[in-house]
């Protein structure tokens, strides 16, 4: 075969032009569609837009905080109100109220003896873990292929 550069260029160009067209894998379109889908449900948290991420974290923190500090107060309130109402009731209403009062007291004791001691620690650890994960993901997204530092 000739080694003349121009001839070689023509031959290579012709041969490459005859190569069959490459088709994209079927998964590509699905991946793109999923990535641009406005629905966040079903997508990993770190792929959501940052306002949604912040909002979800705030709501979750508020919920955990509310349960941690609000539940004992609610139990105390209910526990104080229900027995009085039971005294004015009659028949099955009275017995149902008594049962519910016992259940409430039981839940209150369970909360104070089992859940409350560790709830605040779990809350703090969860928040620290979330922050650490967010920092790791932010770092990974910069160094991973297709990350911010590549563009």
């Amino acid at each position, binding site marked *: *075969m000739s*080694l003349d*550069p121009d001839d*070689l*260029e023509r*031959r*290579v*160009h012709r*041969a*490459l*032009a*005859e*190569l*069959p*067209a*490459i*088709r*994209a*894998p079927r*998964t*590509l*379109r699905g*991946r*793109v*569609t999923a*990535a*641009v889908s*406005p629905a966040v449900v079903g997508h990993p948290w770190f792929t959501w837009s940052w306002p949604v991420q912040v909002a979800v974290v705030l709501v979750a923190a508020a919920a955990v905080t509310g349960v941690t500090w609000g539940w004992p107060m609610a139990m105390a309130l209910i526990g104080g109100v229900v027995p009085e109402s039971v005294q004015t009731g009659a028949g099955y209403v009275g017995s149902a109220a008594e049962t519910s009062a016992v259940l409430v007291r039981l839940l209150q004791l369970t909360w104070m003896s089992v859940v409350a001691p560790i709830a605040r620690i779990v809350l703090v650890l969860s928040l620290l873990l979330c922050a650490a994960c967010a920092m790791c993901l932010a770092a990974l997204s910069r160094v991973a*292929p*297709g990350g911010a530092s*590549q*563009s």
Partner: protein
Amino acid sequence: MAARGDPSGPPGAAAFDAFVREYQDMVYAVAVRLLANEAEAEDVAQTVFLRAYERFADLDGQATVPGWLKTVTTHLCLNHLERYRARWRFFSEMGDADAPAFDAPSAAADPGQALDAATRRARLEAALRELPPHQRVPLVLFHFEQQSCDEIARVLGVSVGKVKTDLHRGRLALRRWLS
């Protein structure tokens, strides 16, 4: 999602889906030939379409869409190759930039034997992917994307002379698979 006529809102799902369907083969072909790796090419193609999505209202229906997509794909692939090479040097310190990026056993067969056209084309494609990036990338840009040596040199940040040398060496490596 908004319709095409609403440039302020996100693109219409159906319109963008049709857009992806129309150009996915082109984008993927450019990426897979530049990167010589199907999985990485799919990742890059996805990123290209996500960027297109961000400015779909401006892009859709424009005659410059194929050129824009090819330019973005090329830049993302070159960035990817640069990062890959830097990491490889960092972790392995082998320093063999000319080593093939992956195995292509079909290209190692005896080229002297009689081959039908389809087999020869398949082996040419494999041989192209087996080339080191500094030869494969200029070849792909020159022969598939019809870029001049000057344009390739500018994109790659190297001299025109180096581009011509790499092109010639790449062609020499492919010549045994020419019909």
